[in-house]
C-alpha cells in the first residue's frame, strides 16, 4: 500500500532528473560539447581585447604579452582553443539551414546550398582578414 495515496486523487510519479542527464544519450553529449565550445569563443574574444590593450600599452608590456603567447603551454592551449573554435564554427554553420528558408524564383533553396553559402562567406571574410593582416 502507498500511504500517500488517497482515493480519487491522482498520485503522480515524477522521475527526478539525474545530474548527468547529458551523458544519457550520444546526441545530448554532442550537444553539451557543442555548447561548451562557446566558452572558448568567449575566451578568444577576451584574448583579442587583451591583445588590443597590450598593443596600445608600453612596448615592454607588449613584448611580455607576446612572449607569454609564445610559451609552449599557451601555444598548446591555443591549439585546443583553435580546434574548439573550428568545431563551434562548423556546427554553427551546419545548423544554419534549420533557421533560414531562402526562396529563389519560387523554389526553396536546398539545405546544402545554404550551408555552402555560409562556408563561402566564412572563407571570403577569413581570406580578406588574412590579406589585410598578412598581405599588407
Amino acid at each position: 500500500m502507498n500511504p500517500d495515496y488517497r482515493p480519487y486523487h491522482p498520485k503522480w510519479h515524477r522521475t527526478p532528473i539525474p545530474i548527468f542527464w547529458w551523458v544519457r544519450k550520444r546526441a545530448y553529449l554532442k550537444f553539451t560539447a557543442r555548447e561548451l565550445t562557446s566558452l572558448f569563443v568567449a575566451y578568444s574574444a577576451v584574448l583579442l581585447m587583451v591583445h588590443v590593450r597590450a598593443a596600445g600599452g608600453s612596448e615592454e608590456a607588449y613584448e611580455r604579452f607576446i612572449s607569454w603567447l609564445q610559451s609552449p603551454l599557451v601555444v598548446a592551449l591555443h591549439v585546443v582553443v583553435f580546434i574548439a573554435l573550428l568545431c563551434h564554427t562548423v556546427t554553427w554553420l551546419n545548423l544554419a539551414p534549420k533557421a533560414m528558408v531562402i526562396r529563389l524564383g519560387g523554389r526553396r533553396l536546398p539545405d546544402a546550398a545554404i550551408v555552402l553559402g555560409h562556408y563561402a562567406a566564412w572563407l571570403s571574410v577569413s581570406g580578406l582578414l588574412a590579406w589585410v593582416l598578412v598581405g599588407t
Partner: protein
Amino acid sequence: MPEYRTHEHDVLVIGGGGAGLRAAIAAAETAPALSVAVVSKVYPMRSHTVAAEGGAAAVIKPSDSLDDHAYDTISGGDWLCDQDAVEAFVREAPQEMLRLEYWGCPWSREPDGSVAVRSFGGMKTERTWFAADKTGFHMLHTLFQTSLKYQTITRYDEWFVTALLVDDGRCVGAVAIELATGQVQAVLARAVILTTGGCGKVFPFTTNASIKTGDGMALAYRAGVPLKDMEFVQYHPTGLPFTGILITEATRSEGGWLLNKDGYRYLQDYDLGTPEPHPVLRSMELGPRDRLSQAFVKEAALGRTIATKHGDVVHLDIRHLGAKVIETKLPFVRELCLKYEHLDPVKELIPVRPVVHYLMGGVHTDIRGATPMEGLFAAGETACVSINGANRLGSNSLTEILVFGARAGTAAAEYAAASRPASRSSVIAQVADEARRLRERFLDKSGGRERLATLRTEMQQAMEEGAGIYRDEAGLVAAAETIQVVKDRFPDVRLDDRSLTFNTELVTCLELANMLDVAETIIHSARAREESRGAHERTDYPARDDDRFLAHSLAWYSPNGPPRIEYLPVTITRWPPAERVYGG
C-alpha cells in the same frame, strides 16, 4: 470522500472525434450563452477520424451538380437512403467544407490556388476534397485546434461514459468514469449529443482503431432508442493483411488496379465494366465498396486469389502511377506499405483483402440529428440519418460528420436554450446506482472465471463467420447463438485489475458489454432482412426485394431476449428505386 461528483452544462457532447467537435462548435456558435461539455474516452486528437485517408465529398466545381452528388449517393446506397436527408446533405456539404477551409484545413490545391478534387468510388465526377492522403487527420486536428478558441466549450478528456441519465423519457446527461482517478462523474445537461463513432471492433479484422466499440450505439440502445439499419456493415476492399490497415480508395481513383493471382483485372468479370488503362468513373476499380468486396469473395472461391499466412489476398498495383504521383498524392500509403509490409508500392504490388471498415447503421435520428428520445441527439458513424443507405460511398462519411455534426449541434443548442434545466434530484439516484453497479459488478466482485480476451475473440469470430460479406439463415442463427452464449458468460468475467487509477481493463470490459449488444442488433437485423441490398448480401435471398424491404430496420432493446425488429419506410423524393448500374 463522495463516490461521485456532478457537473452541470447545457449541452453535453459524448465523443470528441470529428462529429463531436463539429457539434460542439456548432452548439457554441448557435448559442454563445450556453455551456458545452465534450466528454471523450480519449483525447480528441486520438479519435478515429484521424485515420481517414482519402477525402471528403462536396460539390464545388462548376461542372458538378448537387443532383449528381445526390444520385450517386442514393444509387450507391441501393435506394435505402432517405432522400430528403441526402438532399440536405449534398446542399450543405460545400458550405461545411468551406467553413473547415476557413478554419485552416490544409486542403490540397490546384495551381491557381483553388481547392483540388479527386475522383472516388461510385462517384460520377471528381468531387472529393482531400489533404493528400491524411484527410481525416487534418480535419480532426483542424477541428480540435479550432475548438480551443471557444471559451464556452469545456472538455472532459479520458472520461468513459457508462450510462445515459434519463428523466421521464428525456435524456438529461450521462454518467462517466474519470479514468485518471477512477471517480464516477455525472454530467447533467439539457441536451445530449452522441458522437462516439462506429463499432468495427465487433469484428476480428477491421481498419478501425481499438477504441471503436459502439459505445454510443449501446448507450442509446439500452436507454430505449432504436438502432437503425444495423445489418449494413461495410467491408473496404483494400486493407493490408494481418494489421487491417486501410489502403485508401484514392489509390484506385488515382489509377490503381486490382489484380488476381494471374495479374488479371478480375473486376471485369463481375459486372463492373471493362478495363481501361486510365480510371473510368463508376467503373471497375472505381465501383462501390460493397460490389468490390463481394467480387473478392467470389474470386477467392474460384481459387484465383493468393494465399498468405494472414488469409487470401489480391494485389493492388499502383506502380504505373509513378513515384511522383505516389509521393504527392499518396505519401501516407507509401509510408504505411514501407512500415507495415516492408514493400515499396512504387516498385511492388500491395497485398490487400476486404476488411471491416464502416457501419452504415446506427442510432436512429431524423434529419436534424434528433433521436426519438427527447433531448438526445446523435451524429456521425454512431448515428443513422440515413444518408448512406445500404452502402456508403467513400468520402461521404467525412462530409457527413461535418454536415450532421453541425446539424445535431445546432438542434441540441436550440433545444437546450428552450428547455428547462434537468432536475438534479430526480437523476441523482441513478448516478448512485450506476456507481454502485460498477463497483459491485466489476471492482469489488469476488470469483469469476472468464477472461475478457477469450470472450471478445469468440464474439469477433462469430461475427465474421455469420455476419460477414455473405450471409445466410444458418450462419446468422449460429452467430446469434454464439453471441447469446458469450452474453450469458459475460457476468462471470473476472478482472485482474481492481484499482481505481486508470483502469484500462475495466474500460475494455465495459466496451465488450457494449459490443455484445451492438453485435446482437447486427445479427438480428441481418437475419430479419430476407433480401440482398448493398452491403447486406444473403446467399439464400440473392435479390433485392423492394416490396418487403424498401425500409429501414429498427432494432429495439428488450431486456430479456433478442432485439425486436421493426421497419420504417424509406423517404423517396425524386429518385424512384432503380437498378444499380456500374461500368458505364
